[in-house]
Structures are given as C-alpha cells and as structure tokens.
C-alpha cells in the first residue's frame, strides 16, 4: 500500500493540474465568445456576395469564367484546415479522420494543402502529397490571413493543375457539437437567383463580365475566411469542453485519493495503538 506521503503528493499534483485545466477552460470560454461574434459579424458580407454572384451569373450564363468551369482533368485538391495546437478534445482527430475517408473515396489523383500543424503531421504520416502548408489560423483570423491561400488555390485552378478544389474544416454547430464538413470551393457554383430583384434587371458597371472577374476571387477568399472563423470557434468550444472534463476528472481523482489517504492514515494509527497496547501488556 502506498505511503501517506506518496498519496499526499499525488493529491497535491492533481490539485495543480486542476488549477491549470480550470484556468484554460475559462480562457477558452472567453475566446469562444469573441470567435462566435466574429463569425456572426462576417455573415452579412458573405450573404451579400452570394446574392450578387447569383445576379451576375444569371446574366452571364452564356459566357463562362474559368473559375466557373467544371473540368474533368487535373488533380483533386483538398484544403485541410486544422489547428496548430491541441488540448482540444477530438476536434482535429475527427477532422483528419473525415479527410482520410474523403481521400479513400476519391478515384484519381488527390493532393492536399494543409492549414495547421495537426493536419500536416497527419498527412505526412499517411504519405499524402502536400502542395503547400500554412500556419494554423490565429486566435482572431483576419481576411488578409486567407488571401495568400486563396491566391494559391485560384492560380492552381486557372493553370489547370487542379481540376476540383474542396475544403475540409470543422463546422461550428454549437458549443457541444462541431462537425467535420466538406465544401466545394472550385469550380464555383452560384446560388439560384431567387432573392430580391432578378439579375437581368440590373445595370452592370462597367459590365457583367468585369464584375464577375473581380467577384470570383473574392468569393473564394470569403469562403476560406468563413472556414477559418468556423474552425477557430470550433477549436475554442472543443477546448473549453475538454478542459471542463479534465477539471472534473481531477476533482474525482482528488476525492478518491483523499479517501485512500484517510484510510491509510487510520490504519497507521490503529497499528501504532496496537503496538503501544501490546508493548504495555508485555511490560
């Protein structure tokens, strides 16, 4: 049986761990709040862009922009968004497992671009080709952060290296639920032109083609930015829940250890009393 001092030491270290996990839980909670606000704040722009794209696309249904063309040639590119850091429960594991399924289901050549260290490490282990790697998104992703990635993807699609581009990231459903999700990035599929005034009633300046020309790259960047925000929100909520569980486990452990400590202490006292008593009898 462990000695009293050993148990006391284990109780103390469990207490220290509990303090840390509890602090991380609260930090993650406050960062989650900001991440959620950022996700909401970015929505109006994305929705409006969708609408304008639908308007422009309906007018231009005859002529095609290269980013709208569906191709049969070229590799399939998967953009895998994970985080640099862990301690966030099964978040990255789930995203990576989902990506592995997607890769397994693809016939033909597949390649990847990874964002975040966790995804890169996993792709390296499974010997997947990696075209490029970007650092994980920061605590508060900015639109400028996704522009280099957006450029790489659109350039690769325009020079026909890639025939199709999808993005895999963690969709933030709620604090308790984050779901790995795949979205088609390229070719761009405009939404049905149903909202507001039909596209053909608009005047386009300078002309519909020029509007589309500027719109499409920004549309890709906007989708990437949304994925960045979703992943960040998912990360903090997953981390918050993981740390809450860790704190509760530590509490349970402390309780069990305290009980054991008391038992050992009691049996030590009993033994000493027996020793004293038998010593007195003998004397």
């Amino acid at each position, binding site marked *: 049986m462990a000695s009293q001092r050993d148990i006391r030491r284990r109780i103390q270290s469990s207490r220290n761990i509990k303090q840390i996990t509890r602090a991380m839980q609260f930090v993650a909670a406050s960062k989650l709040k900001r991440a959620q606000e*950022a996700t909401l704040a*970015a929505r109006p722009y*994305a929705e409006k*862009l969708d609408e304008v794209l639908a*308007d422009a696309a309906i007018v231009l249904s005859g002529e095609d922009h290269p980013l709208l063309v569906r191709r049969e040639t070229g590799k399939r590119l998967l953009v895998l968004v994970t985080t640099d850091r862990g301690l966030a429960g099964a978040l990255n594991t789930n995203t990576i497992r989902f990506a592995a399924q997607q890769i397994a289901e693809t016939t033909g050549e597949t390649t990847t671009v990874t964002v975040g260290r966790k995804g890169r490490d996993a792709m390296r282990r499974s010997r997947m080709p990696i075209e490029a790697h970007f650092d994980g998104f920061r605590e508060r992703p900015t639109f400028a952060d996704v522009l280099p990635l957006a450029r790489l993807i659109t350039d690769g699609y325009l020079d026909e290296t890639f025939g199709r581009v999808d993005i895999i990231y963690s969709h933030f459903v709620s604090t308790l639920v984050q779901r790995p999700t795949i979205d088609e990035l390229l070719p761009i599929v405009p939404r049905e032109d149903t909202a507001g005034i039909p596209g053909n009633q608009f005047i386009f300046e*300078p002309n519909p083609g*020029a*509007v589309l020309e*500027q*719109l499409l790259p920004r549309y890709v960047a906007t989708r990437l930015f949304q994925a960045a925000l979703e992943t960040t929100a998912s990360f903090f909520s997953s981390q918050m829940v993981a740390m809450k569980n860790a704190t509760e486990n530590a509490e349970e452990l402390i309780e069990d250890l305290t009980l054991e400590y008391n038992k050992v202490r009691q049996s030590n006292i009993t033994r000493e009393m027996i020793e004293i008593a038998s010593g007195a009898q003998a004397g």
Partner: protein
Amino acid sequence: MPIQLDIVTPEKLAYSDEVDAVVLPGSEGELGVLPHHAPLISTLGAGELRLRKGGQEESFAIIGGFLQVLPDRVVVMAENADMASDIDLEKAQEARRQAEQALEGGFVEGADLAAARAALQASLIRIRVAERRQHEGRRRHV
C-alpha cells in the same frame, strides 16, 4: 424617402442606417445615389464614400469591392471601410512612409510588390479622407 445604406466588409458590418443620399467611388468615377435609383451592380474603386443624413455628413475611406443599388437600398461590399472619425492620421502617415520605403527599396516583387502598392494606396486614401474631415471641422468652428 430615405435609403437604407449598409456598408459591409469581410470582417464586419461597418455601417447600417437610413440616409438621404450617398456618393461613392465607383470604378468608373464618382457615383451619386438618391432614392429610386435604378437597380445597379458596380465594382468600386478606392476613395471616399460620403453620405448625407439629416443635414449631417459622414465619410468613409473605401477600398475596393462592389456596390448593389436597389430602389430603397444601397449595399456597399468593400474590402475595407474606415469611418473618417476613426482614422488615426498619424498611423496612416506611418503606414504610408513604410509602404513608400518598401517600394523605394526596389527589392519587392510579385505578390509583395502588389501588397506594398495596395498598402500605399490604402494609406493615401485614409490620409485624404481624414484630412478633409479635419479641415471641414475647422471651418465649421470658425
């Protein structure tokens, strides 16, 4: 009848209110919008957006993007939109100096060159909008 003006950027809703008129930097030149304008979708240049609301004027430094005009509504989708009163003139001037230095150094090329040019243009617009506001403020007080 007022027009509902929304200025959105990828990161936030920068402005949302009813205004009487708005003047924007269209890619083909300045563009004034009053109520009952014909439906229009246009690309935006970089420059100053001015809006009038009940005799008050407000201005924004706008950089790139799109504009959608509906009879009762104007939506500006800008890459960047800074309200004139929020612009820190000293910071903008510092950004301009840095961008100019980067360009004069001559060793930037490709994407970096484009970024440096964009930064320079952005800082120049911010400075212009902020300065104009300061001048007008002074005139009003005299």
